[in-house]
């Protein structure tokens, strides 16, 4: 009898051992992610992992296709006035929130007024600062946004104070999502109780462990999503996440493939074809100079330092996940100057130029960098290259909280900064305005060239089109000569998908969960 019980126990244990693995034939999309999903509130979310999570539950007026061209979503059509100051959207017929209520123009107005409400404290509200009355709303001087008008239940109009040619793209991002008022009002914490018009609805969320959801029966795209639901395992270390996807336990990770795993996956053709390059957030890795202090105020010094860095080695360090940068605009963004050649590695020429500038023996300086392993390894490579021409750089790695705090609040201590920038949307203005404009919020080197700012202001009025892209390509050429920064490389991040999953990357919300399917 006792032996029977022991055998039974062993059988039970074996069953328990084998059951969680294998058996993935149901129609649930399995997702893994490393960090707890901070929020599902589209007005608060601003991370690589929260935007795709937001896209599970919300939709905006428009979406972007692979070329970042606006396509209808909740709005079926729109008109932008010739002066670029009025945007009029017409909503699609029969669109509903996941709770079954019809979506009207009032919901659009409500959504944007909440985004701009100072109490929402949205980090992305600035993207719609050009809307008339947005500033008054943000300052708490107005209860509504005067520039947003409901014309009829299906038509809503946005008036701007000044034209912003990239505004259309911003409607496709998380801050442009349409939310249901009753959801906000009923929720104790709206970031955990989403109510929108996305492909899925939330079923359960165990903090830091797991989130599950099921198909939204009212989703506006007939017959989609292709999955009955999704199941997110939270707290999965990125390398372990890759193993899970490889073994078929999971389908996709919200985290990018770590550098170390990329080399292994890319070397195996069967695995490499399951790599999915990120279409959103084009990147630039660059070194900022404080051009207001010597020796960096001298263009020749900047030029010499740019020549001293071997960019091909940086590409190697990234295991081939990047291309050398000719200028600041990433190659996937329209307006990138395809004729610009990346600076050739020329330590001898750099030394000569440095001598000409009056620094035959080089000089010593300091470079700030975050403790992010990628940034740190790039910075170390740059520092050793610079040492070869006599520029001795002390590297100061800081935790990102400290890094940002220092740069925002004590800009005077900055000499050199190694950092990265991800464009929020594929418009070249999102590279110049925050990074190099005199008032740029991310302009940590405090570079200020008023002539260039005036030129930017002029070309930024051009509507999307060849003329605009050509003008920005020209601007990029000028920047590559003036060298306010050392433009190093454009990095591409990758997702890794399971064998059974077919999914595309979205230029706005990173992953297209609604059209994803099983092979």
């Amino acid at each position: 009898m006792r032996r029977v019980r022991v055998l039974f126990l062993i059988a039970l244990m074996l069953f328990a051992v084998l059951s969680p693995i294998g058996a993935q034939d149901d129609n649930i999309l399995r997702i893994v992610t490393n960090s707890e999903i901070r929020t599902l509130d589209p007005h608060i979310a601003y991370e690589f992992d929260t935007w795709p999570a937001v896209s599970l539950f919300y939709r905006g007026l428009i979406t972007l296709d692979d070329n970042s061209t606006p396509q209808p979503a909740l709005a079926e059509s729109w008109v932008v006035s010739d002066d670029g100051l009025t945007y009029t959207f017409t909503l699609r017929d029969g669109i509903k929130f996941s709770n079954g209520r019809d979506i009207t123009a009032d919901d659009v107005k409500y959504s944007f007024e909440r985004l701009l409400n100072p109490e929402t404290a949205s980090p992305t509200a600035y993207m719609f600062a050009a809307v008339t009355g947005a500033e008054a709303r943000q300052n708490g001087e107005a209860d509504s946004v005067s520039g947003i008008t409901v014309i009829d239940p299906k038509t809503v109009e946005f008036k701007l104070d000044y034209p912003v040619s990239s505004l259309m793209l911003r409607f496709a991002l998380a801050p442009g999502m349409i939310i249901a008022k009753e959801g906000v009002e009923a929720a104790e914490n709206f970031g955990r109780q989403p109510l929108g018009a996305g492909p899925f609805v939330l079923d359960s969320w165990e903090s830091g462990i797991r989130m599950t959801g099921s198909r939204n029966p009212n989703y506006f795209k007939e017959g989609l999503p292709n999955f009955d639901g999704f199941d997110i395992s939270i707290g999965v270390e990125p390398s372990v996440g890759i193993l899970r996807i490889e073994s078929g336990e999971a389908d996709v990770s919200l985290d990018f493939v770590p550098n170390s795993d990329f080399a292994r996956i890319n070397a195996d053709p069967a695995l490499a074809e399951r790599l999915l390059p990120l279409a959103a957030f084009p990147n630039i890795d660059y070194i900022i100079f404080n051009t207001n202090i010597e020796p960096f105020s001298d263009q020749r010094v900047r030029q010499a330092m740019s020549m001293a860095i071997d960019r091909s080695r940086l590409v190697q360090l990234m295991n081939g996940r990047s291309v050398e940068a000719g200028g600041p605009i990433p190659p996937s963004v329209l307006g990138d100057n395809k004729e610009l050649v990346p600076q050739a590695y020329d330590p001898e020429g750099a030394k000569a130029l440095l001598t000409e500038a009056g620094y035959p023996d080089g000089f010593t300086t300091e470079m700030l960098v975050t403790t992010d392993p990628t940034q740190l390894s790039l910075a170390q490579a740059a520092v050793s290259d610079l040492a070869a021409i006599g520029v001795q750089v002390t590297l100061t790695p800081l935790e990102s909280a400290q890094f940002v705090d220092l740069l925002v609040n004590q800009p005077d201590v900055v000499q050199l900064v190694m950092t990265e920038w991800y464009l929020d949307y594929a418009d070249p203005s999102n590279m110049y305005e925050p990074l190099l404009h005199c008032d740029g919020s991310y302009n940590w080197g405090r570079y200020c060239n008023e002539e260039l700012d005036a030129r930017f202001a002029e070309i930024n009025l051009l509507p999307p089109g060849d003329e605009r892209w050509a003008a920005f390509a020209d601007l990029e050429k000028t920047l590559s000569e003036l060298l306010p920064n050392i433009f190093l490389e454009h990095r591409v991040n990758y997702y890794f998908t399971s064998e059974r999953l077919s999914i595309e990357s979205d230029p706005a919300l990173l992953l297209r969960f609604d059209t994803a399917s099983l092979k």
Partner: protein
Amino acid sequence: MSSYLIRRLVGAVGVIFGVATITFIMVFLMPGDAARMYAGPRAPEETVERIRELWGLNDPLPVQYVRYLGRAIQGDLGNSTRDSRPVLRSIFERLPATLQLAFAGLLVELLIGVPLGILAAIRPGSWADGLTTLLSLIGISIPPFALGLVALYVFGFLIPIFPLGGYGTVLHLVLPALVLGIGGAAFYSRVLRNSVLDVMGDDYIRTAHAKGVSPRRVLLAHILRNALIPVVTLAGLDLALLLGGVVVIEAVFGWPGIGLQAWTAIRNQDTPIIMGTVLFASIAVVFMNMLVDLLYVTLDPRVRLTKG
């Protein structure tokens, strides 16, 4: 005994109050700006300022301190600045996972460490002695992060016996508990080996042998009763530390415990969570310390609280 207890309790409250104060000061000495972290580097300064105002970060330090203490006494540790949820709720949500891992880890430490230590002591130079040394080497030289990843790769991916991290079933617990316990097991076995050897040389053991008591009984009833005392102390303190969360192990295995939460909070400058976790961990340490002391009294007749 009861006056001793009362004195210990008063002392404990003092220690916790001190920890709360020191944590509060340390958090405010920490570089970085919680509001800026929340808003992100791209947010304009006005937005950040609004958030600071909203969170009361612009009030003078003493005002913030008194507010913090006042709320903490009522069990309100504030809300996470990252996901706006009450800190205490977050901690209690994570507590079961941490408790499970802590007890499982301790169990592994004791189940491996105690028998190994005894064997190593009664047979110096045997395989048990060698294994103790080997485990110590592993525990000291391989970082738990690497050991965890290797364990996952071998026993989760190559030979898929255990799940690839995560939380839920007993199976999920095995690998993290083993990785967590191996270093400790080696440590316990060394401590126990030495204390067994120590006790074995005592006069009363020789007497017991001379009386004709069986070697097994001498070992179990005479030697171990005394030799185990340091292990009990260590285990109690160990458990207290484990309750504060095991950051690295929790991170590798995706174990949703307090340690992982604290680690994330530090990176995100989520001050209320950091302060809440430190406070919680210190309460755990103080409490376990008291428990160990009380246990001591029952285990070791020489420690009687006459004068305290």
